[in-house]
C-alpha cells in the first residue's frame, strides 16, 4: 500500500519526522515501510513564472522567445513548446536548478537533469519552462496537463512563488507492507493511528459531519439482503442533482500519490474514501436500477454478466451479486456492471458501502480471474462497523465539493452487530511472556494511544472491532512489545532443564555418506524432487515398471515439474549431462535426497519417502572405482555383513553386462553399473558414465557405530597362493564365497591378484589367482592346519568345475 505522507500528517498534525526517520520508526513499531519516494526529488529552483511577452525567434521557426516574470525580475527564456501564450503562469526552472526527467516522459535519471543558462540559436535563454513529465510526473496523475507542452498553472498563481509547492509535489510516498492480520492498516486512517502512537502524538482522524436533505432515502430505494451469510452489512445513501466536475487539487494530489488516477469528483470521492477508511464503495446510477431496488444474493450457475470494463464474465452459484428489481447490476465487492455504471449523464446515484465475506470475495475473484482494488480490500475481511462511517464521509465530501445534493437518511441492513472483544489484562503474564518488567500503567498507556478501550473495574482490554487481530493475551502482549520497543526487550538464553543436542542415527549415517563420497572425489549436487513423467522413457523403463507409479501434483509448474520422483537417476544424469555439455572433465557427483513411493494411488496416506545416496561419474574411473566408493561407505558405517553383487537384475538404463544389484542378507540395498549407451545417448553424455544408487532405509538396519577391538595378531600368518583355471561363466564372487565359507576360523583374508583370459588358456576358461592368508589367534599355524583348510577350499572349488593350474 502506497500513501502520501502529507495525508498522514493531516491526521497527525504534530508529526515532524523526516521521511527516513518516519520509515525507521514505523518499521520498528510494526508498520513496515518498504521504501519511499520523494516527489520533489531532483526538483530544484522551480518557481511560478508569468509569461509577459512572446516573440518569434529570429533564426528558428519552431522556437519562441518569452519574457517571463519570476517575481523579483523578468528573465528571457527560449522555448519550443507550442502551447504557451502571453499571460500564462508556468513552472520555470531557473539557471542552476534541476528537473526530474526529460520531456518525453521516459525513465527518470537518478540524478535528474541540471539546467543552465545558455544560447539557443544565438538567443540567450535563462531558464526552462517545464512540462509535467519534466517534473517527474505524468498526465495520468495530472489529467489537466497538455499532451505535449508546458504545464499551465492556475491563473491565480503568484509569480516567483514555489511551483512545486503549488503542484503538491513537496510530498513523500511511503510504500507499506501491511501484514494480513492488520486489515485496519490498509487505510490512511489506520496508518495514521499507528503513526500517532509510534511518535506519541495526538491523533486527529477526520470528523464526519451529518449530511442529507429533508428527504428520506427509503422513499427512493429498497434494499434487500437475501444471502446475509455473505453480506453482514449493507449501507446505502443517495445523492441527487449530481454535478460532475474535476476534483479539487488537494484531493487529486492525495489520490495521485497513492497511484490512483483522478477522474471526476464522484469517482474520486469513492476512491478517496476507500483509501482513507479502507472501505471500498460503489456508485450505481439510480436511474438504471429497475424497480429502484437493490437485492444482494448469489448468482445462478452459468449466469453471464458484463462488468463495467466491458468484459463478459461467467458466474457460478458462489458469486455474490448485486441485483436490481430485475437483473444483476454488479458483482458484489469485485466490480460493478456495465448496465448501472456512472456515466457523464448521471443525475442521481446510490452509494454502496457494504461488508462482504472476505473468503467468498477472495475465492470468487480468483475463480473469475478478476482481482480489483476493492476485492483486494474485501478479501482481508473488513470491519462492518466501518461501513456506515465511510459512506457518511463520502456524503460529507459530496457536500464539501459541491458535487450534488445528499438525500437524507441511510439504508442500513445490519442484522447481527459485531461487538467489541474483551480480553483479560494480566500485566504479570505479559511480562512473563516477554521477559520484561513493564509496569501496568505503561501498558495501559500504550492501549490508550492505540484507541483500545480499557475496563478498569474488570481489568479488561476492549478491542475495537477494527482490531480483529486482538483475541487473547498473547495479542495484547504483542501490542505492549511493539510500543515498548522490541529493541528494548532484554536478551537472555532459555533456562531450565538441560537437553542434549544431537543428530539422529539416520542423519549421522548420511553425514558419513557425504564424507566418503567427498573423500572419493565426488561433489554434492542438489536436484528437484519433481520432474517430468517423460523421464521414465528417457530411462528406458518398460510400461509395467513400478517406478512409473509416481505421485502427480495437482497444480504443477508445468509438465516438467509434475510428478514426484520415484528414482533419483534423472536428476543425477541431467546434472552429469549439464557438466558434459559444458565440457567439464572427470565429473563426479553425488546427491542425498528423497524419492517418493506411493503406498497406493491415488494417494490416501503419506507416501514412503526414501533417502537415496546416489553417485554418478564420467571420465576417469570405471565400474570398480564406483564399487570401491560404495564399499568404503559400507565399511565406514560398520556394515560387517558380507555383500553380494548379482548381475541378474533389472535396471534397463544400465549396460546389460556391467550392472549389479547389491545384496545384503537377501535384501537389495542398492545397485550400480555403467550407464546403458542408449541412455547415455538420450542424456547426451558422450563418455562412459557410472552410477550407484543406495537405498538408505534398507542400509540403516545393517549400519552400526559399535566397534570392538580384536587384538593385533601376535602369531605369524601363513599365505597360500592358488592359481586356477575357471570356467568363464563362474564369477569370482562365487570363488570368494567358497573361500569364505570353507576357510574356517583361521581364514584371515583373501585377495585376487591375477585374472587372465587369452592364448595360454583353453577357450571358455579364464585363469584366476588368489592369495589366501591364514592365521590363528592363539598359536603359530602348522602346515597341517593350513593344508586341511586348503583341501576343503579346493574341494569346494572343484565342485564349481575349477581346477588348479599346474
Amino acid at each position, binding site marked *: 500500500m502506497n500513501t502520501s505522507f502529507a495525508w498522514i500528517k493531516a491526521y497527525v498534525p504534530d508529526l515532524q519526522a523526516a521521511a527516513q526517520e518516519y520509515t525507521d520508526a514505523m518499521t520498528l513499531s510494526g508498520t513496515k515501510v518498504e521504501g519511499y519516494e520523494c516527489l520533489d526529488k531532483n526538483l530544484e529552483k522551480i518557481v511560478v513564472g508569468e509569461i509577459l511577452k512572446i516573440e518569434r525567434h529570429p533564426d528558428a521557426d519552431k522556437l519562441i522567445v518569452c519574457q517571463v516574470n519570476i517575481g523579483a525580475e523578468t528573465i528571457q527564456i527560449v522555448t519550443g513548446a507550442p502551447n504557451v501564450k502571453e499571460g500564462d503562469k508556468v513552472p520555470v526552472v531557473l539557471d542552476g536548478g534541476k528537473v526530474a526527467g526529460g520531456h518525453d516522459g521516459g525513465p527518470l535519471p537518478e540524478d535528474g537533469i541540471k539546467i543552465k543558462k545558455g544560447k539557443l540559436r544565438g538567443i540567450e535563454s535563462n531558464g526552462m519552462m517545464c512540462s509535467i513529465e519534466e517534473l517527474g510526473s505524468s498526465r495520468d496523475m495530472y489529467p489537466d496537463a497538455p499532451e505535449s507542452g508546458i504545464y499551465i498553472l492556475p491563473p491565480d498563481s503568484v509569480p516567483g512563488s514555489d511551483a512545486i509547492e503549488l503542484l503538491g509535489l513537496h510530498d513523500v510516498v511511503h510504500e507499506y507492507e501491511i501484514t*494480513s492480520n492488520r486489515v485496519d492498516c490498509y487505510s490512511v486512517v489506520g496508518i495514521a493511528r499507528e503513526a500517532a502512537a509510534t511518535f506519541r502524538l495526538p491523533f486527529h482522524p477526520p470528523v464526519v459531519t451529518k449530511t442529507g436533505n429533508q428527504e428520506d432515502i427509503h422513499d427512493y430505494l429498497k434494499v434487500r439482503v437475501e444471502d446475509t451469510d455473505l453480506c453482514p452489512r449493507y449501507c446505502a445513501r443517495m445523492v441527487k442533482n449530481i454535478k460532475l466536475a474535476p476534483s479539487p487539487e488537494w484531493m487529486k494530489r492525495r489520490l495521485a500519490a497513492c497511484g490512483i488516477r483522478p477522474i471526476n469528483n464522484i469517482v474520486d470521492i469513492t476512491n478517496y474514501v476507500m483509501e482513507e477508511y479502507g472501505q471500498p464503495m460503489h456508485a450505481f446510477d439510480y436511474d438504471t436500477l429497475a424497480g429502484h431496488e437493490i437485492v444482494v444474493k448469489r448468482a445462478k450457475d452459468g449466469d453471464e454478466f458484463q462488468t463495467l470494463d466491458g468484459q463478459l464474465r461467467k458466474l457460478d452459484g458462489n458469486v455474490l451479486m448485486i441485483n436490481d428489481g430485475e437483473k444483476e447490476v454488479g458483482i458484489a465487492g469485485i466490480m460493478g456492471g456495465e448496465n448501472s455504471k456512472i456515466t457523464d449523464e448521471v443525475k442521481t446515484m446510490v452509494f454502496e458501502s457494504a461488508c462482504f465475506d472476505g473468503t467468498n470475495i477472495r475465492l470468487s475473484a480468483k475463480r473469475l480471474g478478476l482481482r480489483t482494488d476493492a476485492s483486494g480490500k474485501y478479501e482481508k475481511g473488513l470491519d462492518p462497523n466501518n461501513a456506515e462511517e465511510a459512506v457518511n464521509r463520502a456524503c460529507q465530501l459530496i457536500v464539501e465539493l459541491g458535487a450534488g445534493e445528499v438525500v437524507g437518511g441511510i439504508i442500513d441492513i445490519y442484522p447481527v452487530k459485531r461487538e467489541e472483544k474483551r480480553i483479560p489484562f494480566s500485566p504479570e503474564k505479559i511480562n512473563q511472556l516477554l521477559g520484561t518488567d513493564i509496569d501496568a500503567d505503561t501498558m495501559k498507556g500504550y492501549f490508550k494511544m492505540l484507541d483500545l478501550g480499557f475496563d478498569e473495574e474488570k481489568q479488561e482490554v476492549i478491542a475495537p472491532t477494527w482490531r480483529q487481530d486482538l483475541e487473547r493475551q498473547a495479542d495484547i502482549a504483542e501490542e505492549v512489545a511493539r510500543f515498548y520497543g522490541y529493541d528494548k526487550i532484554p536478551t537472555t*538464553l532459555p533456562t531450565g532443564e538441560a537437553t542434549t543436542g*544431537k543428530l539422529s542415527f539416520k542423519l549421522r549415517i548420511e553425514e558419513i555418506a557425504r564424507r566418503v563420497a567427498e573423500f572419493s572425489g565426488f561433489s554434492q549436487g542438489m536436484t528437484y524432487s519433481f520432474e517430468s513423467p517423460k523421464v521414465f522413457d528417457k530411462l528406458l523403463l518398460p510400461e509395467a515398471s513400478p517406478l512409473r507409479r509416481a505421485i502427480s501434483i495437482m497444480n504443477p509448474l508445468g509438465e516438467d515439474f509434475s510428478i514426484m520422483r520415484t528414482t533419483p537417476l534423472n536428476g543425477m544424469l541431467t546434472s552429469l549431462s549439464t557438466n558434459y555439455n559444458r565440457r567439464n572433465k572427470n565429473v563426479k557427483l553425488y546427491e542425498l535426497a*528423497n524419492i517418493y513411493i506411493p503406498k497406493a494411488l491415488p494417494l490416501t496416506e503419506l507416501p514412503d519417502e526414501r533417502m537415496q545416496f546416489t553417485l554418478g561419474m564420467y571420465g576417469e574411473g570405471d565400474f570398480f572405482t564406483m564399487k570401491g566408493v560404495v564399499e568404503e561407505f559400507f565399511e565406514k558405517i560398520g556394515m560387517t555383513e558380507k555383500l553380494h553383487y548379482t548381475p541378474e537384475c533389472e535396471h534397463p538404463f544400465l549396460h546389460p553386462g556391467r550392472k549389479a544389484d547389491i545384496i545384503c542378507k537377501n535384501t537389495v540395498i542398492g545397485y550400480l553399473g555403467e550407464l546403458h549407451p542408449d541412455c547415455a545417448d538420450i542424456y547426451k553424455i558422450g563418455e562412459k558414465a557410472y552410477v550407484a544408487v543406495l537405498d538408505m532405509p534398507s542400509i540403516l538396519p545393517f549400519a552400526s557405530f559399535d566397534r570392538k577391538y580384536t587384538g593385533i595378531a601376535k602369531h605369524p600368518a601363513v599365505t597360500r597362493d592358488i592359481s586356477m583355471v575357471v570356467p568363464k561363466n563362474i564369477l569370482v564372487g562365487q570363488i570368494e564365497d567358497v573361500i569364505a565359507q570353507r576357510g574356517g576360523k583361521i581364514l584371515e583374508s583373501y585377495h585376487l591378484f591375477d585374472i587372465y583370459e587369452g592364448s595360454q588358456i583353453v577357450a571358455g576358461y579364464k585363469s584366476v589367482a588368489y592369495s589366501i592368508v591364514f592365521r590363528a589367534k592363539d598359536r603359530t599355524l602348522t602346515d597341517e592346519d593350513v593344508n586341511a583348510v586348503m583341501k576343503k577350499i579346493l574341494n569346494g572349488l572343484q565342485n564349481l568345475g575349477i581346477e588348479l593350474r599346474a
Partner: protein
Amino acid sequence: MKDQLEKIKAEALAKIEASDALEKLNDIRVAYLGKKGQLTSVLKSMKDVAPEDRPKVGQMVNDARAIIEEKMEAARKELARKMREEQMKKEVIDVTLPASKASTGHSHPCTIALEEVERIFIGMGYEVVEGPEIEYDLYNFEKLNIPANHPAKDEQDTFYINKDIVLRTQTSPVQARVMEKGKLPIRMIAPGRVFRSDEVDATHSPSFHQIEGLVVDKNITFADLKGTLAEFARELFGEETKVKFRPHHFPFTEPSAEVDVTCFKCGGKGCRFCKGSGWIEILGCGMVHPHVLEMCGIDPEVYSGFAFGVGLERIALLKYEIDDMRLLYENDERFLNQF
C-alpha cells in the same frame, strides 16, 4: 716400543686426515686396527716385553687405539655429512611446480550452511529432527493456525497432491509433529526441503530448504528468543554482528518478529549489498501461538515457547555471495568445487 707406537699412531692419523672416501677409512681401519693390523701386531709382540712393563705397554697400545678410533670416527662423520650434502644438492626441486593434490569432492553450499547452523544449535542443546516433505494439509496449515480459506494459505502458493495432502510449504509442520508427541521440554531444529509454486528465476526456486527451530518449556520468554537468535547470528556471521527485531505477523506465532542482521559486507554502514540500509533480513520468528500449543495438547498456561524459520538458500546466497539461485540446482562442477 714406545717410538714404534708413536710412529704407527702418527702414520695412521695422517692417513685418516688424507682420506676422502669411506672405503679408504675402512682400509685404514683394517691396516691398523684389524686382526692383522699394525696395532694388533704390537699387542701380539707383548710376549717379548718384560712382564712388569706389560701393563704399561698395554695401556699405551690402548691409548693409541683410542685416539685412532676417535679420529677415525670423527673423519667418518665428516665424510658422511659431506656425502649427504652432495646428495641433497642433487635433489634440489622447483618448489613452485604444481602440487599433486588428492582431489576430494565438495559439499553443496547449502549443506555447508546447514552444517554451520546445526553445529550452533546442537551446541545449545537442540536435537535435529526431520519430517515428511509430502505432508498433510492438517500439519502444514491447520495445526499452525492457518485454517481452511485463510488468506495465508493462498500467499504460500502451495503445490497440492490432493485436497488433504500437499508438498510442505514450510518446515513448520515438524513443530506440530514434535509437540504432539508431548515429550517436553523441546529444543529442536528441523531442516529440510520445502516447496512453493514460484517460477524459477535468479531469486526464486519452487524447491528450497528451510530450518525450523522450536523451543517449548516452562518460562520461555521473548527475551530468550532474542538472546538465542542474537547468539546464532553472532556464531554464523561473526562476533560483531548485531540483530534487529521488527514486529511482523505469522499465524502460528504471537508476538512475531522478523530479524535483520547487520550487513556483513559493510558492517552496517550501508552498501549496495544491503541496499544502503546496513541491515539484511534473515529470518522470521515469534512466541509459539497459544492456540498452536493448545492444538498440540500443550497447556499454554503452563508452557510457552518460541519458534523461528530460516531459509537455507538465503543464508548460503548471502554468505557466499552467490548472485543467482539457479546455480544451486545446476550442479556445474565449476560452481560446486568453489565450496
